[in-house]
């Protein structure tokens, strides 16, 4: 393979989450230092968005001039008039119709179907259902009781997180000095979960990998939360893989829960 092919292969493995954490970390450092590579990674990632079933979407770099020009078209009076005409049409044509199928009847039908499903398929909980049952953000470490100056940022992140402003947590995290990941590695949990809550799965994995790679005494919490990312994504194979790592280490966080979840998935 020539250099270009090797680079291509590395980008693919990076985007498909096939790199082990240490290689991923060093690749991300390379991306940060190399504009050409950064552009190539972004374009490859965007190409996945051409697939209809992809979760990816394109994010262009900030281009104020272009955005201003485009926004002018959406602010134009004719666009506003069109939007209003469309809304008026819709409002006039979506009156509630009386139907033989009353809400009560629908409820009864739904109840019969649900009961039927439970009787017929009692042992096959979906991954999304399991995710709902197993994720619990109340278990995240609290910074509120700490009193030093640095703790103010951490407290800010925690408070923002607890009020479910996940996008704001991500914005704050982007302004953090990276040294905080050495002094307070657990902060990656808040950042990772915020990415998870906003369906930015790859970023969530990066954050949890950062904790796994850290010197934190509870670095292994990263595995549990990483498993939750795959679980939410519906990626059974990787969920099992991560859970097996936890189950092989009885001192790891949520060892019992991991065993239980593994049984339920398998």
């Amino acid at each position, binding site marked *: 393979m020539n250099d*270009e*092919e090797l680079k*291509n*292969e590395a980008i693919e493995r990076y985007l*498909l989450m096939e790199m082990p954490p240490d290689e991923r970390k060093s690749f991300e450092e390379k*991306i940060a230092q190399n504009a050409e590579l*950064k*552009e*190539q*990674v*972004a*374009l*490859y*990632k*965007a*190409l*996945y*968005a*051409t*697939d*209809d*079933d*992809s*979760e*990816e*979407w*394109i*994010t*262009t*770099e900030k*281009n104020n001039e*272009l*955005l201003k020009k*485009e*926004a002018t*078209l*959406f*602010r134009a009076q*004719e*666009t*506003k*008039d*069109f*939007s209003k*005409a*469309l*809304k008026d*049409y*819709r409002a006039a*044509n979506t009156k509630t119709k009386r139907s033989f199928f009353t809400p009560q009847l629908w409820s009864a039908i739904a109840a019969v179907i649900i009961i039927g499903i439970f009787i017929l398929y009692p042992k096959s909980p979906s991954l999304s259902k399991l995710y709902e049952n197993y994720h619990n953000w109340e278990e995240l470490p609290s910074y509120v009781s700490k009193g030093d100056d640095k703790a103010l940022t951490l407290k800010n992140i925690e408070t923002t997180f607890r009020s479910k402003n*996940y*996008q704001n947590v991500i914005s704050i995290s982007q302004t953090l000095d990276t040294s905080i990941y050495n002094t307070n590695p657990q902060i990656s949990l808040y950042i990772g979960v915020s990415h998870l*809550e*906003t*369906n*930015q799965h790859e970023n969530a994995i990066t954050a949890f990998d950062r904790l796994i790679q850290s010197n934190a005494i509870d670095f292994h919490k990263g595995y549990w939360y990483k498993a939750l990312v795959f679980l939410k994504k519906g990626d059974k194979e990787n969920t099992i893989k991560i859970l097996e790592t936890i189950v092989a280490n009885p001192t790891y966080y949520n060892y019992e829960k991991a065993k239980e979840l593994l049984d339920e998935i398998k």
Partner: protein
Amino acid sequence: MNKKDPFIDGFLNGKPDIFNKLYTESFPAVQRYIVSRGGSKATAEDIFHNALVILFVKLKNEELQIQSFKNYLFTVCKNLWRRECSQNRVTNLPSTPLIDEAVDLAKFSIEQKQWDLYQEKLKELSENCRKLLLLSFKKITYKEIVKVFNYASETVARQRVFKCKSRLTKLIKKDSRYLRLKP
């Protein structure tokens, strides 16, 4: 599509019979698509509305090279939904449009143009390359690709995908409409 086409002309002039056709013929498929992926009916309504506004702006201000209005409308709705999912945003349509809404639609419109550019360039590739890349973008493993294309080995499959991908990225980057992306 031609602006003189009676359907496009009626759409641009906000004719109720055209809106009626759109809501009876196109909206149900969009709603089914979104609701089956966990979205609400209200979200489907908002997305459909926004897609129509985006198409209005496009048709008014540029030459839109599309074969079918209906298909393109569905594509825009799907992409708005994917963007919504990837950013986990709630679409709200206030009764009077706010500045932010115009900026948000403008941002999407720019992204959609990039998406259209990728599709256009994909079509410029050979059929074989295009098929290969579509599988690769679906994240199908090389093992599977070997089977589908009857290649001698995974190494051959990798090399072919690499060549096609390089060809595609060159075509995209060479185009003056290409914008740098955020990784």
